[in-house]
């Protein structure tokens, strides 16, 4: 089923995460969400949890799951969605490689 992805000691990827937040720009700042704030949320919720970690063993949210691109994207969505208060999380796209990615949308909001 998993081919070489099943090798016993695991393997790594340079993941790329794309986060899209949708909403009305604030009339004063012209921003949907302050990028500084988004960066802090991503650093805290995703980077500190996952960067340079063994996903199977070190990320509590993935403990019972196989860390496929689909499952990691879903975990990231669930971590970010409640933290984004200005605008609404629209899409989480996680690239495992340049040719493989998973997208998460709020159900019914897929474009």
């Amino acid at each position, binding site marked *: *089923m*998993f*081919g070489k992805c099943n090798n016993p000691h695991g393997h790594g990827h340079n993941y790329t995460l794309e986060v899209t937040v949708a909403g009305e720009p604030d009339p004063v700042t012209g921003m949907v969400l302050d990028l500084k704030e988004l960066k802090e949320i991503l650093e805290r919720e995703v980077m500190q949890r996952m960067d340079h970690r063994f996903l199977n063993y070190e990320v509590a949210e993935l403990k019972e*799951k*196989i*860390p*496929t*691109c*689909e*499952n990691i*994207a*879903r975990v990231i*969505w*669930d971590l970010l*969605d409640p933290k984004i208060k200005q605008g609404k999380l629209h899409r989480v*796209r996680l690239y495992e490689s*340049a*040719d*493989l*990615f*998973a*997208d*998460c*949308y*709020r*159900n*019914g*909001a*897929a474009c």
Partner: protein
Amino acid sequence: MAVKIELGRRYRFAASHRLHTEKLSEEENARVFGKCANPYGHGHNYVLEVSLSGDVDPATGMIANLAELDPFVEREVIDVFDHHSLNEDVAAFRDVVPTTENLCIEIYERLKSFPHAKLERVRVQETTNNSFEYDGSQKGKRS
């Protein structure tokens, strides 16, 4: 909270085409298609993006297994188009101009029967500045 998850996979193929139709005069072809109507065609390095949706299998964590998707796309699309002339070698383009819009429709039709997940859309990038998407919602509109 309900979340929809899609799997995206990219493939690459090189193909040639000529944008030209018998329905227009030579002058009109030249005006509409410009240098893309040059008689011997020209090539592109196309990038195809395939998006699938479906339940993430709790046992495998997957919407679709790439070990099944990749050979399917290879057989249905890459083997047929790669290093071929779209006009001369692909029956669907005998009487249909092989624009990237029409190429999207043809690829969608070829891939929609993938048995293990739902085909959401195909996106074809003709150059880094041109891309087109088709999600099956305008069936029969090909011209």
